[in-house]
């Protein structure tokens, strides 16, 4: 904990990773110092974001910087509960991811490690800026920086497959954000005259329902990082990236930035009352429910481990978008919590996938027979991550799915509850067979009773994945403060009697 003003902490949270990015190239030739800087900055950032939490819980909404570009349009930062949640996820996972990166990059003897760490730090810095954004414009700016800074990471391997994957990544993310999100933002400003995130929304009463419905469509599809179909396939094509980058994409920053933006837009641009009162969210709720199931089914058919996890992410993101669209206090809390629990679960799974690649050079699920005997720690962590993603106790994932389901009931969408339950079954079907195969199938060429030499990945890989698996467990018992914090985002608003009665 640091006893500094929250404003100072916010600036520090944005500057620390950025400063690291500037320092890193100086120590290009000295890997130890380079990695020391990364770890130091990451640890410092984790402390900084955790120190911010009590301020937010106490109801403070500190603001820093406010450059007014012209009347009503500014770049500025303000910390509110949802932003704190996202900053907390990105800020605390960076340090774990860095330990893992160092292990992975060294074990694989990867090229261009300095630029890898630099881009990573810039991505984290932009995630912080995005989390603290005071208005849609600032958010959009950091959203794009995040895309640009992660592009070299996706292309890291430098071969044709990596370049092709990275190109799809870039074109799709920039295309959706510039082609839909940006016009949506401009039209929102044209209607509302402001872009500031405001409790209760800014669009209510400023434009007609039809326009608002179109804006909602543009936002939902324009936020390409949330990977709503048909703009989801950047995520599977980005799996060419090294595993620490996949973890960054799937858990730490990128897709989380997408769903975070989605939550912000629903809560602070449209306003959840406006969404439910006008009913413009209804068609999208059905559509996103469909995406949720479709992605799960596609995941079921993948043999490549990372591809299966990627489609699983597409499906899990749809949970959060669905929660945002349901627009009840409970569903928003569930969506916010799912940002955290899914991050912990999915980063564990990706760390495991990477560890399997580093230790055994296997990428396909069909090759994993009996691997649990060689890599028991990894596969137990994989099991824990899977259970949390599925939503079984005693792991964190159960709570977020619970709240989203309750939110769906509140909003009167029983069908959404059915979709959630069906999807959980699909999660079981695509995740648990991997674990079963690893533990219950015999190792090829080894008799079942013959002792097997342990062959785990380096310690720098094992420790992080054990920590994140532990986090899945901890989140089961410690979900309360997170839900409390997210609830502040949706209850601190002028109460409207009808909805109060309805609840």
């Amino acid at each position, binding site marked *: 904990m640091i006893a500094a003003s929250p404003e100072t902490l916010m600036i520090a949270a944005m500057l620390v990773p950025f400063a690291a990015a500037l320092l890193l190239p100086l120590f290009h030739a000295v890997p130890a110092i380079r990695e020391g800087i990364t770890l130091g900055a990451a640890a410092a950032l984790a402390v900084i974001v955790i120190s911010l939490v009590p301020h937010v819980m106490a109801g403070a909404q500190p603001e820093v910087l406010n450059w007014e*570009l012209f009347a009503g349009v500014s770049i500025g930062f303000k910390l509110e509960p949802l932003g704190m949640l996202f900053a907390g996820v990105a800020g605390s996972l960076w340090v774990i991811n860095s330990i893992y990166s160092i292990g992975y990059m060294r074990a694989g003897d990867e090229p261009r490690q300095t630029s890898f760490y630099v881009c990573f730090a810039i991505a984290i810095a932009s995630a912080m800026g995005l989390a603290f954004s005071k208005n849609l414009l600032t958010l*959009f700016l950091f959203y794009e920086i995040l895309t640009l800074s992660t592009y*070299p990471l996706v292309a890291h391997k430098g071969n044709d497959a990596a370049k092709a994957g990275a190109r799809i990544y870039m074109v799709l993310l920039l295309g959706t954000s510039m*082609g839909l999100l940006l016009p949506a933002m*401009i039209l929102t400003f044209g209607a509302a005259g402001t872009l500031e995130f405001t409790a209760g929304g800014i669009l209510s009463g400023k434009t007609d329902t039809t326009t608002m419905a179109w804006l909602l469509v543009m936002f939902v599809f324009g936020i390409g990082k949330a990977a709503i179909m048909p703009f989801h396939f950047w995520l599977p094509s980005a799996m060419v990236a090294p595993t620490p980058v996949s973890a960054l994409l799937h858990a730490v920053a990128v897709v989380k930035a997408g769903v975070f933006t989605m939550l912000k837009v629903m809560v602070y641009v449209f306003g959840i009352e406006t969404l439910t009162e006008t009913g413009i969210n209804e068609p999208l709720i059905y559509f996103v429910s469909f995406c949720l199931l479709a992605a799960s089914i596609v995941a079921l058919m993948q043999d490549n481990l990372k591809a299966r996890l990627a489609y699983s992410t597409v499906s899990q993101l749809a949970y959060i978008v669905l929660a945002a669209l349901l627009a009840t206090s409970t569903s928003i809390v569930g969506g916010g919590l799912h940002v955290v629990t899914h991050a912990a679960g999915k980063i564990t799974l990706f760390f495991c996938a990477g560890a399997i690649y580093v230790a055994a050079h296997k990428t396909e699920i069909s090759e994993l027979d009996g691997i649990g005997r060689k890599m028991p720690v990894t596969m137990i962590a994989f099991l824990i991550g899977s259970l949390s993603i599925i939503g079984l106790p005693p792991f964190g994932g159960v709570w977020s799915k619970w709240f989203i389901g309750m939110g769906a009931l509140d909003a009167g969408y029983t069908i959404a509850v059915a979709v959630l339950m069906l999807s959980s079954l699909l999660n079981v079907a695509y995740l648990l067979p991997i674990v079963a195969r690893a533990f219950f199938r015999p190792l090829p060429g080894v008799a079942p009773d013959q002792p097997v030499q342990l062959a785990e990945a380096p310690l720098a890989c094992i420790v992080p994945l054990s920590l994140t698996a532990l986090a899945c467990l901890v989140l089961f018992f410690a979900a309360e403060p997170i839900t409390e914090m997210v609830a502040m985002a949706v209850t601190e608003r002028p109460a409207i009697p009808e909805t109060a009665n309805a609840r």
Partner: protein
Amino acid sequence: MSTASGAAFALKDHLAMLVVVTPLLGSGVVAMLPRGAASWVVTTAITFATMAFSILLLWEVQERGVISYAIGGWQPPIGIEYRVDILNAFVLAIVATMGAVTMPFALRSVPSDVNPASQPWFYAIYLLCLTGLLGMAVSGDAFNIFVFMEISSLATYVLIAMGRDKRALLAAYQYLIMGTIGATFYVLGVGLLYIVTGTLNLADIAGRIGDAYAVHPRPVMAALAFLIVGISLKLALFPLHVWLPNAYTFAPPFATVFLAATATKVAVYVLLRIYFGVFGAAIDVSALPIAEALLVLAIVAMFVASILAFYENRIERILAYSSVAQIGYIILGISLANENGLTGGIVHILNHAVSKALLFLAIGAVTYRLGHPYLEQLSGIGRKMPVTTAAFVLGGLSIIGVPGTAGFVSKWQLSMGAIDAEMPLLVFLIVASSIISVLYIGRIIEVAYFRPVSKDCERATDPGLTMLIPIALMAAATLYFGIDTALSADIARDAAKLILTGLKS
């Protein structure tokens, strides 16, 4: 004491004239200097003096409102009037400032294109070109504008022809033909206006053209058509842009920087002045089909030129086509003819000037090291010329319109103009053409940073301070105008309001 304050007072009164006369006389002085270095020093001093006068003039106009200056004491409408309001004061300040702050770049760049004996001539012609552009902006007399247009055009042909590549001659010739056609159209338009109104003073024409239109609508419409087409050629409105890419590619880099930042912008000003200030003040412009035509051409320019830029393999030509597209944005704002749209168009005169100057300065630095390179030869240049390439990227971001850069401010204002005009689809078009600019700028960035260092670039390094200083200045300006709009969009809004209040509806 009294004489000193009297002189200061007099200086203040003659700013409008000084802005033109300083570079004009300076040109004569520089032409007589024997050596390159001396002529550079004198030229720099003259351009900075001109810049100071133009900024003082802008200040005066902001304080006092419209300034009318009778040349030689001959009162308008008989004599030639220099008439400065917030709109042309803004343009004058942009042109004169660009003409001055890019001068340090010339010190190393010009000798690599022009032999020492010709350098005084080069600078003399440069000052003449500056004179012509400033004269076009300051003059309130239709024929006087034509004279200055010819001065600037003839000087431009010479500047382009001085490029080190032989194809510069062809490019200059091409521009000569096109420019002459443009000027001819303009002067035909002015002639028709003189026949129906009997005057050449713009304000006076505006006062009489309403009656003339009631009696002889056709000559007035013909005059407008001739003027618009003539000016559109000068400002390189698609499809009248064909002279521009070659001219920018083969001219000496310093000339390209200056021309890209200023020449087409002054033509845009003349369009604003004639279309709104003369015709719009007397006739309901919305009744004329000009706005629709300009809107369509602007949109076509934004798309076709951007796509052409994407398929070019010479970096200067990519930027040249990008300029054509950016002029499309300016014209788009003009065609919207509402406050936000006009503000966007006018502020883009500045923002595009700054960003494009930055880009061409960076390319000029590359040309200085490597000759005129093809895009492929620049692979890995980001590692060899880091400062230059970073500056280039910043300019590129501004062309795309990324928040925090100057380009964003213009595009935002234009989008607001489109919404005010109840054309929300236009917002999508503005954004879509920005996406194409992402592609062509991204292509350059990809080559510069994500490819192995090519043989050609191996020994390249960032240029010396004289080149880096203007690059840094323009980079700072690109960021500054993206963050603080007091000097850019606020003035542009005043100009837009001035234009709109003068309109007869």
